[in-house]
């Protein structure tokens, strides 16, 4: 007994000559697992294989020993929140979630009750009677999440669930995901942004070019990332003054002048972020924006697949 809820064995999927997922072996236990990889790495393909949406070209996915593909009964234990918008624009949020709940076999009253509960969990009760077509991007994400939660699945699969959410909604969604895991659920969350995954779990899988290139603790990945220069864009009209101050820091490896600011390369981003506010206040710099593209994840993937 491995304690694994979900198992993938030799899982491969190719589209003609293109390999989507290549010989993946996985054992997923209860808790949150982050699926991290750049766009086009194969995360969505893997999730669609796990949810039985597409047939594996080779290998199997099983939930408690039951094959997922072409096995609708297994779907009762799975909840899926797709990346793409998958909504009936002319239904209200409540009727959308309730009608999908009924596909799980609940009575009308039970489905409505569960839909209200799920919508409450994603903080959308105020908008439950509005048509989905009038929802903002973040609200649409949350109602999709509600339909995945409505039957209280054992395994919850979320494809880029935080995309388009405002900071408050992100925070409450992250809290919700953690609560589900704390209640014994198994949650798989895909993202291409490290800090999003980091906020939800310590356990991650790195996917690149259709393969699992690493799995383990998020700190190990963070350390790997920190070995590579981390690029941070600072939007400021005082380019020369800010650059002059930053160049004195030992952990700043390079500074490049951009159109509307500076691109700073640092090997210790955490230290940089903690010291920067003090520097700005001390010199009264005007810093209008700060963007970390996190694109050095690509460098980590390149390093891992060498």
């Amino acid at each position: 007994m491995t304690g694994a809820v979900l198992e993938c064995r030799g899982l491969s999927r190719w589209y003609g000559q293109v390999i989507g997922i290549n010989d993946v072996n996985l054992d997923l236990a209860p808790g949150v697992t982050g699926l991290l990889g750049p766009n086009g790495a194969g995360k969505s393909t893997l999730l669609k294989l796990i949810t039985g949406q597409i047939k594996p070209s080779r290998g199997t996915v099983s939930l408690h020993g039951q094959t997922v593909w072409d096995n609708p009964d297994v779907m009762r234990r799975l909840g899926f929140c797709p990346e793409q918008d998958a909504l009936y624009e002319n239904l209200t949020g409540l009727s959308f979630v309730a009608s999908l709940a009924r596909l799980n076999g609940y009575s009308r009253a039970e489905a409505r009750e569960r839909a209200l509960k799920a919508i409450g969990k994603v903080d959308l009760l105020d908008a439950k009677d509005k048509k989905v077509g009038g929802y903002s991007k973040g609200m649409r994400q949350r109602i999709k999440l509600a339909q995945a939660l409505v039957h209280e699945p054992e395994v919850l699969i979320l494809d880029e669930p935080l995309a388009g959410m405002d900071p408050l909604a992100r925070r409450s969604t992250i809290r919700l995901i953690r609560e589900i895991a704390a209640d014994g659920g198994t949650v798989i969350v895909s993202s291409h942004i490290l800090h999003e995954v980091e906020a939800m779990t310590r356990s991650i899988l790195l996917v690149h070019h259709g393969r699992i290139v690493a799995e383990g603790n998020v700190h190990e990945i963070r350390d790997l990332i920190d070995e590579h220069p981390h690029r941070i864009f600072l939007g400021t009209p005082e380019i020369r003054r800010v650059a002059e101050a930053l160049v004195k820091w030992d952990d700043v490896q390079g500074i490049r002048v951009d159109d509307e600011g500076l691109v700073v390369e640092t090997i210790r981003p955490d230290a940089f972020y903690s010291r920067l506010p003090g520097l700005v206040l001390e010199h009264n710099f005007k810093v209008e924006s700060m963007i970390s593209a996190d694109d050095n994840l690509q460098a980590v993937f390149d390093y891992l697949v060498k």
Partner: protein
Amino acid sequence: MPIYDQSYRPYRGHLSSHAMRWWTITRTGLMHLFSKKIFLVLITMTFFYPVVAGFQIYFVHQFPEQNLVTINAEFFRMTMEIQLLWFLVLGIYPGTGLISNDLRWNAIQLYLSKPLTKLDYIAGKLAIIGIFLLGVSLVPGLLLFGLQLGFSSDTKFLTSFWWIPFSVIGYSVSASFAWGMIVLALSSLSKNSRYVGILLIALVFASGGMALFFWGITDAEGVIIISVIDELKQLSYLFFGGQGAFGNHGFAAAITLVFLMGVCAATLRRRVRAVEVVK
């Protein structure tokens, strides 16, 4: 201190059986349609001819000396044929949007991530259009037969035409299934229901034009079954007997429809997917 099980606990309440899971899709679709006034007006209009036919039966019995119309198998076949107009109308609305709207909203992946098979999904969608098609063919056909029996003072009509209800049922079910499958297959071809509507109208008129063209050059009446609508008309002769301007090619029409159903089923199998696979 007792320590309780912290692991996942599934729902232990009653769940409906899988066999009727498709009905959830049908019911949701029906509720959505019945909430639209334009659709209610459309459905009301479909009863126009059956009401006229009902009055015909009434007048035949009230004024037998007038010799208005003969109530026989052809009367019922003709009712079915005239109601085919509504097959076309209902095929365009709501038929064309049944799958294409789901494709447009990426909803199929949500359906198929639930305990539902592709067959359940297609059956659910087919039932939506099927219910309306049977509503404009089976229901008026049986009601008119009942009306005729009600007005008859003897059993002469019943002993001569006892088989008509079976023909009405057989024809309505087979024509509704065939037309429903054609509409669903076309609906799965595009994310835009307007394009599907254009495609459906094009199929009807293009196949009709081709049938007339080949009839013109070959003079063979059998080629009329190239036309989709004439194929359904010819099918009615298989169930009710008799023959029209192009003769009776009911059996050939039935064989062609079976082949067409195979094509539709293959199209639906290929197009109804949770994920659009781009190669």
